[in-house]
Every structure is written in structure tokens, then in C-alpha cells.
């Protein structure tokens, strides 16, 4: 098959890779670039564990062809926490939010996106935002509560404004 050369930003670094037209993004990230936090749980967009940011939006990287990411900007969990734990990651640790941890990368990205778009979501909005990320262990409650904690801490007081972390995903 004809190989195509694509270039994209991944967690801030520019990388160029040769891919086949049928290669999906998750396989390129995991097998060619060693980015292992996005996982393969179903390979058909059902479980959300392959979630990554592509140009500032979360996508299921098992449903995106690698060539579609050409010229794009990808951020995975590795990039989210590169400058130290985010308030969300800290809250997940404090709440013992995850058990096996396999869904954690996808859930973290979905919740990160929610809080960026919507700093003060209601509990129902939180549930809605992570409803595409399946978790079999936790019953979701400790995850929801951790996100709620961060959301309530993010209320726009002067103190929390100062603590707002800088965006790790540049706008496209």
C-alpha cells in the first residue's frame, strides 16, 4: 500500500510519520510514537478509552484516520500532566476515583474538555460529559465527585483565578 507522510504536533512536539491510508490514529500514536495513555477498549468508538484532543476537541482516536490528523495538534494525557498534575488529576487521586485505571486517560480528557468549556458544570452536565467513557469498576460516583470538587473550586473568586493553570492545548 502507498505510504503517506504526515506531520502533526503531539503534546507540543512536531513529529513526522509514514502511515498507510488505512492506519487509524490510535495505532499510530501507540505503535509509532510510543504514546501509550490512549488505550484500545473496543476499537469502534463505544468505550471512549482512546480519547485524545485533536485541535482542541476530544475525539475517539480509534475512529480517526491518521491522515486526518495531518497538520493537526494532538494532546493526550501525557501532555495534559506534563507540567505537573492538574487540579483535576489531583482531585482524582484524592478521591480514589479510579480502580483499574484503564479508563482514566479517556475520562480525564473528557472531563478536562468539560471544565474548559464549562468551568462550573452541574452534576448532570458532568455525567453527560463523561457518559461516552465507559468505566466498569467505579460506578462513576468517585469520578463525578472529583470533577465536582474541581468545578466548585474553580468558582470565579480572585484566589482561584490566580491558580487557573495555563492552557496546554493551543487553539487551532
Amino acid at each position, binding site marked *: 500500500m502507498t505510504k503517506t507522510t504526515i506531520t502533526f504536533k503531539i503534546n507540543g512536539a512536531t513529529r513526522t510519520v509514514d502511515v498507510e491510508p488505512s492506519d487509524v490514529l490510535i495505532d499510530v500514536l*501507540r505503535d509509532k510514537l*510510543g504514546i*501509550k*495513555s490512549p*488505550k*484500545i*477498549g*473496543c*476499537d*469502534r468508538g*463505544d*468505550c471512549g*478509552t482512546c480519547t485524545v484532543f485533536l485541535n482542541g476537541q476530544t475525539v475517539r482516536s480509534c475512529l480517526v484516520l491518521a491522515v486526518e490528523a495531518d497538520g493537526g495538534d494532538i494532546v*493526550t*494525557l*501525557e501532555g495534559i*500532566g506534563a507540567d505537573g*498534575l492538574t487540579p483535576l*488529576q489531583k482531585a*482524582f*487521586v*484524592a478521591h*480514589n*476515583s*479510579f*480502580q*483499574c*485505571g*484503564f*479508563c*482514566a*486517560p479517556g475520562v*480525564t480528557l473528557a472531563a478536562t474538555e468539560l471544565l474548559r468549556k464549562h468551568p462550573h458544570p452541574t452534576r448532570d452536565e*458532568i*455525567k*453527560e460529559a*463523561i*457518559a*461516552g*467513557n*465507559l*468505566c*466498569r*469498576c*467505579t*460506578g*462513576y*460516583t*468517585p*469520578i*463525578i465527585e472529583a470533577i465536582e470538587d474541581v468545578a466548585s473550586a474553580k468558582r470565579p473568586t480572585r484566589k482561584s483565578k490566580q491558580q487557573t493553570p495555563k492552557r496546554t492545548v493551543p487553539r487551532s
Partner: protein
Amino acid sequence: MNDLLVVGQSVVRIDGLEKVTGAAKYVDDLEFGPGLLYACIVESPVAHALIKKIDTRAAEALPGVVKVVTGADFPYKFGLYMKDRYIFANERVRFVGEQVAAVIAWDAKTAARAAALVKVTYEELPAIFTPCAALEKDAPLIHPDLGKYAFVPWFFPKANTNIAHWRKTRKGNIEKGFREADLVLEDTYTVPRYAHCAIETHAIVGLYDLSGRLTLWSASQSPFTQRNVIAESLAPLGLTHKDVRVVTPYIGGGFGGKAGVSMEIMGAALATVVKGHPVKMMWSRAQEFYNTYQRQGVVAKIKMGVKKNGAITALEHTLYWDAGAYVEYGANVVNAAGLSATNPYKIDNIAIDSVCIYTNLPPGGPYRGFGYSEFSFGIESHITRAAKALKMDPVAFRKRNAIKEGDTLPYGAPMNANGLAEAIDKVAAEIKWGVPEPSRDPTKKIGKSLVLFWKAPAMPPNAASSAFLKFNEDASLNILISGMEIGQGLLTVMAQIASEILTVPMTKIRVETPDTDRNPYEWQTVGSHVTWGCGNAVKRAALDAREQIFALVQRVYCLEKDALYLENEQVKCRTKPEFALPLRQFVIAGIQAEDYTYKGGPIMGRGVFMPEFASAIGDPETGQGGHPNVHYTTGAAGVILEVDPQTGKMKIRKAALAVDAGKAINPDLVRGQIIGGLMQGFATVLYEDMRFNDKGKLLNPNFSDYKIPTALDTPDEVVPIIVETPQPDGPFGARGIAEHTMIPCAALIANALEDACGARITTMPVTAEKVALKLNPGSAEA
């Protein structure tokens, strides 16, 4: 025990940071370099057939293919409790999707393409898809050689039938019990098959190196069991236990599905034919559904005798298990149920028959609850119905019959200490039992229910745990165990136990996942027994290390050993208050004596635990005489359920579950198990259902068609309640609680539904569709 500093505290998980940063590695995340090969299996398209011919030529001719193997290459049996399987089907296939051959190639796509080119000729045989059909007189035999299989001494297979095991438990006089009854209630309950749905699918990488060493990186709950089963099966190739090494990184959920040995043995076998190259095999989500263990279906016939005063006089409980094509593990689920299918009630006259039946569906096996989730639906539905027939309050009826410490168990041994009564009271108070709950919406109805549960670890009587504990220069600790972190928080709890005894803070303790070469033995991480079993081993290892520390200090400083104690990482002495020796000064380097020589050396603790009182051998006809279960964990759960009678849609307003943890070493982790287990249990009754067509093919092997809950499906409120009646032989009094939390769910929904609308459903799942049709019987034809 009020002075515990770490045990009993809700410390954060020691694996939390790895998991929130993405640092945690699972099998598929490991790198094996450019020499890595990929395997793909050839699957049977039919449920029951003889294999007449396998033509691999076209597959072998495809560029990129390295090797094609078939069952004839590995004519070796394997199995945990009964050796009834081959690594690849030999001569006969017994379920749709069964592995017949495998292709190894340089990349996964080529392996899959080549697998499709393998031509297999089958001679189809009549297939059986229900346990009842398998018991008919002229039913085809699925395992004609059943009489020749090797199995554990507590199994009773019936040669020349489809009955792989029949556990009989008899106590008292069943006829007399029914004669004494004022009311006898009979019914049949059916429970379908279920899938574990761990988000990580099964994965194995095998490397048979040029020196003849076999290393397996396995997504498994059971590294040592895998080593044992695989080494035994592949012994004809010259492999011994020391040649086989199983490494288990983090796993993305287990729930029993990654216990024992399933697809992993193929990875081991395939590695032996491509010496020097690692070979990887990953299950697709579909394969995860149809070619790993499934939770077995069951048809449960219950006949219960009760007196007007509320006493249960007799219970006849017959369980016909749809055990699938192979029962090497699943037969022990059947066995466990057969020992305990009374649920936690004192019943003097019992006849339990738990029958393990081969069918041409995928192999059944362990699933969180291990038989108890399955039989709980029937027995707890029946208990409520019996109470109502007597016009008794179902909770009062349960309390009257609830088992107490010292009561005789179905197999004759005495019941252990338990806080069941306290659990019932706390749950009843939490859901305001007896107080009608007004519906906020007049079109909806509200029902309540409360059910009991119990479960014992199901394991061989000699299932052992062991631990090593070694100090580092700074008096930090590495604990080596082979209990598996499967999400439950084992690593954290083991660190808490060692921290408590050695006063080393949690931040200075590392516990990692197993490697059978480096870590000491653990049978398997199943049955919710590792907090208890592995915890005892870690506790003993910590005590052993402490003993070495005190002996050394006594020897060098001539202080009385009995006066020594540990505090804040220092050795202190009750008779000499000014003495304080930091651990970091000597746990590796030793203590310098007055003559400038050094005494001691690295401190390493060793701990072993085996339940030496257990025995699996009782009378085959009655089950009396043995002590097969080490202890039971008990509890109660309740729900407030809202039902829409028009649509059948149900919403859990509140769920409460109280479990007797003995001692919650980490209460937050216990609560995590309760919340997660309830959700998994409610899913089996409200949404999930494996659907097979009339040829035995699974119709919904994906998350679009087999619905597991999302965050939107969480109950409005979940109240986890911890009861602590110490387990005398548990570490700090602890016993396991994890599986138990999903066991009561099915009956909770069925009973609350009846309470709300008067409809009784006796077949799982209790879906909205089924409820709507039941409540609106005319609507089906409309």
C-alpha cells in the same frame, strides 16, 4: 486495637498517581521491539462439529506469514479444576468462536488476513444450547471422553452424560421439613449469561527465548495459576515451572474474567514455535465477549417450606447450570453455589443440587459473585414471596431466619462471627423500611426492597499466600507479593498493613504487580480472599522483619527484646526511654558494635499463610464433613425504586449496602467497592443480556448492543455502609468484601418492582421492556 495509625484510615491509593498520569502500564503498552510477531486465531463458525480437515497452504503462502499452527501441533490438555480443554480444538469444536488454528505474522493485519485463508472442513454435529436439553435422554454427548478426564477430588462428573459435576448438599430431613411446613412455595427462576466487560481486553505476549526460557506478559489476575497450568500443559515440550515466568503488569479490570487461564495458553504455545521472537495476541472486544469465560446461566428450581410463625422449615434448591463447552473453571462456580445456595439463613432441612451441564455455548467461568450472584436472584425473590404469602414483613422474616455465629452451615461446619443483624438494621434504617415513600411524580410508583447476601471465597483448601518484605537504605520498604492489583486497591491495603506494624510511612512503601520469578507465591487473586490471605502473609512478613530488628538490637545493645517497640521509624525501649535507634541507620548497613565490627545485615521479612483448617472433602451424597469454605462475608442491601408503569422504565432513587468487612483496612476503598459493585450488579438486572441465535452465535458482542452502564445510569443516591465484626483469623480482623457488593442487586430490583407495581418477574434481566409488557399485557399484540 484503637491505637491503629494506618490501618482503618482512608489513605489515597499508592497506584493513584500512576493511573491519573497515564504512567500505569498494561500489557499492550509494553514495548517488545521490532522482532515482535502478531498472532490471530482461526475461529469455528459452528457450535458443534468434528474437524475433518484443515488446509493451511493458502495462509502459509501469504507474504509476511511466519507460521500457521493447528490443534494437532499441541495435543495437550489443560484446565484448572478439570482438564477438559485443548489449547486449540483437537478433532472437535464445541462453541462458535472456538480457536481451531492460529497464524503468526510480522504484523497484525497480515495475521488476520491469513487467518481468513485457513480452510477448515467440518462435519456438523447436533448442538445443545440449554442445560435442560443437555439432560435429555438422547442428548448428544459434548464430551464423550468425560470419564477419562483428570479432575479435583471434590468433583463428581457423570461419564457418558453431559453432567460435568453434581454437587449435592443434604442436611436434616427434607421430607420432615416439608411436612412441618404450613405453606410450601415453589417456583423456577432463570438467569442468563453475562459478560465481565473489563475495558481492557485479554492480552498476552509470549517469548520463548533461545535458551528455552518461556516468559509471558499477561493481562491476568492469576500469575502463579497461569504458570502452573501452562507449565503442566506444556510439560511434553520439556518445560518445567522454573522455565516459565509470568509477568502481570496492571490490568484494566478483571471481575473474574482474567482469573485462571483462558486465551493466554495460546500465547504460550505459539511462542514455542517462533523461538527468539516475542509474539503478541490481543483479544478484540468481540472475542472478549465470546471467547473468554462468561458468567454461566442457570435455571433454579426452588421449593421452600415455611411455618406461620415465619420459620423456614425446608429448602429444596436445584440449580441447572449452563456451563458451556468447557468447565475446567466453571464447575467450581457450580460447586461453590451448591455449598451455599441457602443464602445466609439458618435452615435445618436442606437439599441442594447444583448441576454443572455442558452446552455448546462459550465456556462458563468465574465472574464476580462466583455463583452467588446467580442463585441470589431466585432465593431472595422467593424469600420475599414466602414472607408475603405468610403476610409477614419481608425484613422481619429475614431477620427471624438470618444465620448467626455458631449456627450450622449447609455442609455442617459452624458459621463464623458476623454482623449480619447489624447490617440489616442499618440498611432498613437507611431506606426507611416500612415508611411509604411518596412518589414525586403521580404517574410513577415507588417500591422498596431489602435483601441479604453472603459469600465465601471459593478456592482449594490449600490456596496459599506469601510475601517478602525488604528494607532499603533509607528504611523505605519494598513489599513483594503476587496478589494482583485488579483495581480493588490491594497494593495500598498491603502497604497499610506493613506500615502499621513497622511504622514506615505509606509514602515510603512500594508494592508492585507480580512477576513469578521475583515475587513469592499467591494462588490467584479471586474470591475476594487476598485482603485476608495475602494480608495475613504481609502481616506475618512485617512481624518477621520486626522480630529480626528486635533480635539484632537486643544482641548489640543488650536490651531486653520484650521491651523494644517501634515508633516513627525508630526502635525504642520501654525500660530505657532515651534509647531511639532510627531504622535507616541499620536496616541495610547493620549496627556497628563497640569493637567497630558490624552486626546484622539487610532486614528481609518473610510471611506465609495457608488456611490449615480447610478441607474440601465431605460425603459425596450429602456434602457433610468437610470445611470447604474458610468463612463467609455477610451483608444486606436495600433500594428505593421508581417505576414508570407505562414504559417500564426504572430509576434507582436510593441504594444502600452494608457489608461486614471485619475491619475496613481502608474504608474509602471499601466504599469504592460497594459503589462500583452495586452498579455492576444493577446492570445485570436492568440492561445486560447475552443474546445467542439458534445456532449458538452470540448476537451482541459489542458495547452498542450489550449495554453496560454509563455515568448517566448512576442511582440518584448510593449509601455505602461498613459493618465491622472482626474475622478472628483475618489481618487486623479483616475479611474480603469486593465481590459481595454486586450479589444482591438482581433480587433487589425484582422485589422492589413487585413492591411498587405488584408484578413479579422470575426471569433475568428485568428490563424496562419486560416490565412494560408485564404491566400492560395487551400492548404486546397492539
